[in-house]
């Protein structure tokens, strides 16, 4: 078991804070891919998509994943920044043992796509000719408590 927790990829967030990522998180072009539990995330050093290993494969799933849309940052509840988007889904898919989703800025190539965050499913999920859906939590995908 190499995926033990969700997390933010620090190097990309550092770039956003110092204005060198050149991306808006509210763009509608970012993507989400899925990996098996064999991928060993390193949130301190993994920065581009070419650091990702063990992406899932299968019918109805293309390498690199799909765009996630209707992205929004809001200040809600009070004192908290919340990042959210529509539930990503792969219809008519056969995908085995997906353990986590990895989001990234879709710049264009694996060497330039900047990693954003990993969402740990905790329990691996598999579809078999049906729809694989990531149900984003009611409280959003990412929350940042700025008055801890």
């Amino acid at each position, binding site marked *: 078991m190499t995926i033990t927790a*969700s*997390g*933010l990829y620090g190097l990309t967030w550092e770039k956003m804070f110092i204005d060198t990522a050149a991306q808006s998180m*509210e763009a*509608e072009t970012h993507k989400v891919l899925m990996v098996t539990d064999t991928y060993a995330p390193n949130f301190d050093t993994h920065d581009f998509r070419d650091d990702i290993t063990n992406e899932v494969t299968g019918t109805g799933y293309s390498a690199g994943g799909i765009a996630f*849309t*209707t992205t*929004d*940052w*809001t200040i*809600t509840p009070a004192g908290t920044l*919340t990042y*959210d988007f*529509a539930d990503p889904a792969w219809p008519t898919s*056969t*995908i085995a043992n*997906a353990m*986590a*989703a990895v989001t990234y800025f879709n710049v264009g190539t694996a060497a330039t796509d900047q990693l954003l*965050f990993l*969402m*740990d*499913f*905790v*329990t691996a*999920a*598999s*579809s*078999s*000719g*049906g*729809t*694989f*859906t*990531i*149900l*984003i*939590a*009611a*409280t*959003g*995908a*990412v*929350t*940042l*408590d*700025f008055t*801890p």
Partner: protein
Amino acid sequence: MSDETDKLRAQLEMVELEEQLRVAKNTDEGASDDLRLALREARYRYRTLRDASPDALGPGDAVANPAAIDGSVGVQQ
């Protein structure tokens, strides 16, 4: 009103606001804070109902339900 009706109504409201957000993002003004807040609240309402009463899965369907990533941004005192 049944739970399923509440959930469906909340889903429709969410989808409508998502469409409004898509349209607004393509304008010069962009999406307003009010619209983004309304969508966030609609998503919260729908997903809370969905999690309390999950839809039955079809043959071969799968769902993953990751928890929100909770981060804290502190200021050194």
